[in-house]
């Protein structure tokens, strides 16, 4: 707990709360109305998931440029299966999910087997999958799938908590549990934190990389399911705007590009902050130009703050340390 107080997560939490309170006041209290809250949370589900999908690959020091393409392709596949081929909903969703996971697995395998830079591999698979997505849906917007799925996508518990948001949180929880408390999860982080040390401890970095990419694909599969359930339809533009936010959330959340950090909470909180900016845009009828300006400032501000924090912290620990070190002195 004491350590938590000094973390990036804490900074983000404070920013979140302040931002939220500010928005509530600015909207004259409207924002805490059931519908507004629901809308706020409804559109957090997918951003949280794509942030997490990027976070797991960042955790092994890789990156995934194909987030949008994997998600968009899986969503398109599900849509087409249901609308054009009458595949039952659960089957189509399962199949789409598996496709996304398989795409992630393919990324991982390609990185490991070819030793080509992960950046290039995922760029190439992104290109391929964008092609497949277009081949699947063309310029159509596919929406002829059972209403049950759509009502799942728009249903909210107590009129406030959208189911899809809860699904996203559940995924975040599971991911956190897996990274913190399971052996494969720990091994994955060890590979990211110090690949040589991990290897010396008998951990297969290759396996960690494959696992991370597969997990990323699977999370994107869930994101695709939620997208299909909650969008007016599926078309070739799905996934088109996922790339940048997917990086922004974990990095604002405190992830290191060099690997080794599991920042599930930070990623979720960062997604909240970005979402608040959207809300502010609508609330103040801001021109997108101004919104972009604000996003830029918030990102920079929050991270600079975090940096100042850690620096101060570092200084403090260094000053404190001598006693501990001297304790082992010559006798």
């Amino acid at each position, binding site marked *: 707990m004491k350590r938590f107080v000094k973390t990036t997560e804490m900074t983000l939490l404070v920013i979140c709360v302040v931002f939220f309170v500010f928005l509530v006041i600015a909207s004259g209290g409207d924002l805490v109305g059931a519908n507004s809250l629901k809308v706020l949370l409804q559109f957090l589900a997918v951003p949280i998931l794509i942030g997490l999908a990027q976070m797991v690959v960042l955790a092994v020091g890789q990156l995934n440029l194909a987030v949008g393409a994997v998600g968009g392709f899986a969503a398109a596949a599900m849509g087409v299966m249901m609308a054009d081929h009458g595949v039952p909903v659960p089957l189509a969703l399962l199949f789409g999910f598996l496709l996304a996971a398989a795409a992630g697995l393919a990324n991982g395998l390609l990185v490991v087997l070819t030793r080509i830079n992960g*950046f290039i591999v995922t760029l190439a698979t992104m290109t391929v999958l964008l092609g497949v997505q277009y081949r699947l849906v063309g310029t159509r917007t596919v929406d002829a799938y059972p209403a049950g799925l759509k009502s799942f996508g728009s249903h909210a518990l107590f009129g406030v908590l959208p189911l899809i948001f809860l699904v996203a949180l559940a995924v975040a929880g599971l991911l956190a549990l897996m990274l913190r408390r399971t052996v494969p999860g720990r091994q994955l982080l060890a590979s990211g934190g110090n690949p040589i040390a991990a290897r010396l401890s008998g951990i297969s970095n290759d396996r960690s990389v494959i696992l991370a990419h597969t997990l990323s694909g699977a999370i994107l599969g869930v994101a695709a399911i939620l997208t299909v359930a909650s969008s007016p339809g599926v078309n070739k533009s799905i996934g088109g705007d996922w790339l940048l936010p997917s990086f922004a959330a974990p990095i604002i959340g405190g992830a290191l590009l060099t690997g080794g950090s599991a920042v599930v909470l930070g990623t979720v909180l960062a997604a909240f902050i970005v979402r608040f900016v959207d809300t502010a845009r609508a609330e103040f009828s801001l021109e997108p130009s101004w919104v972009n300006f604000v996003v830029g400032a918030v990102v920079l501000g929050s991270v600079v703050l975090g940096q100042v924090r850690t620096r101060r912290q570092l200084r403090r620990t260094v000053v404190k340390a001598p006693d501990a070190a001297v304790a082992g002195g010559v006798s």
Partner: protein
Amino acid sequence: MSAPVSETATAALQEPDQPPSSSRGGRTPWWANQRIGLLILVVLLAVLFGLLRPAFFNQQLVVFPLLRDIAMFTVVGLAQLCVLSIGHMNLAVGRMAAFSMMITGISYDLWHFSLYAGLLVGLIAGAAIGALAGWVIARTGVNSFVVTLALDFLLLGLIPLVYTALTDNAAFVTKPDGMREMRNYSLADICIGNVCGSPAVPQLALFAVIAMGVVGWIYSRTKLGRELLMTGTSVKAAELSGIPTARRVITAHAMSGCLAALAGFMLAVSTGSIKATIGEEFMLPSFLGPILGGTLLAGGFISVWGTLLGTALTSVIRKGLDLLGVGLESLNIYLGLILLVALSTDRIRTVLSERQEVRQR
């Protein structure tokens, strides 16, 4: 005062038997060199496309625009390469191009600058905005990814505001003298006596040649380039070796911004006007060229030739597919697959060379 090492110390330090400094010492064979591999790939693909569609060698309609593209994206790649050299990223390359071209556009539209004066102003603006990014990174120690991403958003906000305020159509359409010619002229328009250059080579490509020359020279021949690479390898060690790392960070980003501006100018000249959306498509190609060419994302190693070849590889594939009339349903699928296959051969070569080397001993 120098600190000579005396004979005694030197004698004491000498190894009894120096290892034979093998001439081949640790070098990989030429065919395993990544750049040469890329070159072979590019040539093979060009020949293949040429066989399938002889029009591939049409100077005016294919080679000329292809080279113009390669030239521009090479400069885009170099812009990224400069920050990659210190282990940073510039996610705002495209927007920096847009920003600098906005200044150039203003200089044409409002101040009636000549073509080259406007370019110069743009380059300065690019260097300045890049330096700003570098300065923030150096001062705050925040990751370059985050800073340039934030800057990207900031500019994304700023640029349209300026365009909407100053123009009717969100573009500066004033064309200074010489711009049209620059777009269309090839080396055939440059003659020494009655020997003229090839009509397949656009004059615009000269900018890329100059940029490659300057960047290559800086990194291979100068103190600045060496210091950038050292900073990229280890900031701590660089700082402790007396390299002003903060200043190098700023320099790298300024170079990046300046090159982004040049690329923006080349794009503006080749498409026709200076508009807010310049550079929107720069980001991925900016990484693709250098990284395909062997520049390390982690910093400390760059390849200018590699950047050209990496850029050429992707442009040639796309052009070939264009000529084969591959529709959008298949275009991206082929593009991605060819890239993967082509690069896998690179890996196979490396493995083979390692095997061979151990066998030779």
